[in-house]
């Protein structure tokens, strides 16, 4: 297990984890009403109107519960423009060539401990392929839920945007409250060919444990995108409010000339949550650009680390990076840490790094109180102001939800 992260990880008994669990009523889900009511409730809570979306929001959803994909909507509509959006298990059966061509090319099974574990035991996940020249007409999204006790979740997402293709993809995650810790070790791979663009957004709300740090999900995830083609672009946006421990570094390998990588992140740690998160931007092609905006929020006894690598290889002439790492503290017992790594092997590269740390002061809260705004709303206002730059990167319908989530996850953290 990797030991370099700024995390205190209790020993995990891997023999004790159930590596495959299928939801009990794995029946046919032709009718949306047949979906597990728990799952539906989860979606409702997260503002994902699985029922209405057929008419309203135009978001296609793949729902993965425990180890199995239970429902993919809009498959037929998408298929009309040649887009494949289905569960990983279906993809293996129906599009074995595509899966073989791309799977493991960005995150090899030898990449790291959790990637190996995932590669060995994963059972399902989401697969998406956008063919040449197609702009995906709707938001695609995957909803993950860990439901059963003692179960680990090991899903994989593989997302391929062929030349000139565009897709915006969102994943959301929830899990019920449980006293024991549960492991989530997922892999996400993205490939962007020439002139393709992929926006990948995450709203992560796995169960964070209770206020004393009991229970919660261990979120050890490997996410990486490869800008394989020229002028390609991959952009990660993440709102991380859940999980007891988060260990993830959505990264971009900028191989194609003129390719662009972006990472926008808000990570909240409240109570006893820990997060060590950030990104890697590997500049290989010429004139490659990357932007990193990381906003950490720590409250309670939360520990929040940003860890990021900007690497410019020898031939990456004209590479540019801008990094902004901000930390916001609520209270006196939390911590914020920044570990930026910069490795530059090309003289023409321009790499900028800015960092700030600030604290929500009692003065600010009182000022809001005096204008009639409650402490809870004041924190919401201030935190959302702080995180606005990142939240604005989310698709509209999820931005509102993310704002609420931020506020809820910080409830009771001051005053």
């Amino acid at each position, binding site marked *: 297990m990797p030991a370099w992260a700024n995390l205190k990880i209790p020993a995990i008994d891997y023999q004790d984890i159930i590596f495959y669990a299928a939801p009990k009523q794995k029946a046919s889900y032709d009718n949306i009403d047949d979906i597990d009511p728990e799952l539906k409730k989860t979606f409702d809570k997260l503002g994902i109107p699985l029922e209405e979306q057929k008419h309203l929001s135009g978001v296609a959803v793949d729902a993965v519960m425990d180890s199995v994909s239970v429902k993919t909507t809009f498959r037929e509509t998408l298929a009309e423009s040649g887009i494949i959006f289905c569960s990983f298990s279906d993809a293996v059966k129906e599009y074995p060539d595509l899966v073989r061509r791309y799977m493991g090319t960005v995150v090899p099974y030898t990449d790291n401990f959790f990637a190996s574990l995932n590669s060995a035991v994963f059972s399902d996940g989401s697969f998406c392929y956008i063919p040449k020249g197609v702009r995906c007409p709707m938001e695609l999204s995957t909803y993950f839920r860990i439901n059963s006790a003692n179960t680990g979740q090991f899903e994989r997402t593989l997302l391929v945007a062929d030349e000139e293709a565009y897709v915006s993809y969102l994943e959301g995650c929830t899990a019920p409250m449980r006293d024991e810790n549960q492991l989530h070790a997922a892999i996400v791979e993205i490939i962007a060919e020439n002139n393709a663009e992929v926006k990948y957004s995450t709203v992560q709300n796995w169960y964070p444990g209770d206020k004393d740090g009991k229970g919660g999900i261990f979120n050890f995830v490997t996410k990486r995108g490869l800008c394989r083609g020229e002028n390609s672009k991959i952009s990660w946006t993440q709102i991380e409010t859940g999980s007891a421990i988060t260990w993830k570094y959505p990264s971009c390998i900028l191989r194609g000339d003129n390719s662009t990588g972006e990472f926008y992140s808000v990570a909240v740690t409240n109570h006893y949550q820990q997060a060590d998160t950030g990104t890697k931007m590997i500049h290989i092609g010429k004139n490659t650009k990357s932007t990193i905006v990381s906003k950490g929020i720590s409250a309670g006894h939360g520990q929040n680390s940003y860890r990021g690598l900007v690497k410019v290889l020898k031939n990456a002439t004209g590479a540019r990076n801008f990094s902004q790492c901000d930390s916001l503290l609520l209270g006196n017992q939390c911590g914020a840490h920044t570990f930026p790594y910069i490795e530059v092997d090309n003289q023409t590269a321009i790499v900028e790094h800015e960092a700030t740390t*600030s604290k929500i*002061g*009692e*003065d*600010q809260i*009182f*000022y*809001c*109180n*005096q*204008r*009639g*705004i*409650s*402490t809870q*709303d004041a924190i919401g*206002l*201030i935190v959302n*102001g*702080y995180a*606005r730059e990142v939240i604005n990167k989310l698709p509209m319908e999820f931005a509102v939800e993310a704002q609420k989530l931020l506020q809820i996850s910080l409830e009771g953290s001051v005053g």
Partner: protein
Amino acid sequence: MLIIKNLKAEIDGKAILKGISLEVKAGEIHAIMGPNGSGKSTLAAVLAGREFVNVTEGSVTYFGKNLLEMPAEERSKEGIFLGFQYPIEIPGVSMVNFMKTAVNEHRKYKGLEPLSASDFLKLMREKKELVEIDSKLANRSVNEGFSGGEKKKNEIFQMAMLEPKLAILDETDSGLDIDALRIVANGVNKLKRPDTSAIVITHYQRLLDYIIPDVVHVLYDGRIVKTSGRELALEIEEKGYDWIKKEVDKKDLS
């Protein structure tokens, strides 16, 4: 409207207010003057509900209710407005968003629907004109990077938006150029209604040329040591506080 009786308060165990009694009736304007560190801002803080000031004795009733038991945000919604001596910066929170939240909280408290976006912007525009605040300021983050004078004008703008029953203005005139002073004072006068009151804390008589007080109090060492008409302000401007301090110290000795 407001009755303060024998109010004593301390900060970190140190007595700051040492028995203040004051009654403000509807429609009145009270000026409070007094040397630095005498407790003027502390009194304002107690009235607004700041928690680090610890009230040890006395009572404050506001429209018949025990004010000291009300949380700060409720006092605001009940019509108490504090213009801060040092307005606070809140980076990342736009004035529009801040004021919209505040105004709608006040409306909710009164059982009114929240204002629509367009009605709200209209209200903002009206009030901006009323207090002659630069339109650009309202598009920035709350007080962030505002100059000293701009912050003070912004306090008056917020007061205009919230239409308080009792406005407590803590040195809103300090740091203002002469034009800004007139604007702020005019703002206060325009917003004044026959049934609303104000407590104006100031060091300078010139503000009271614009805002005509009914009473002037002098606060010294945590006590109101002198209460008189407007002319008291002039006297202080001329002679300073020494003569009042002497009077007080003499009384203490005897």
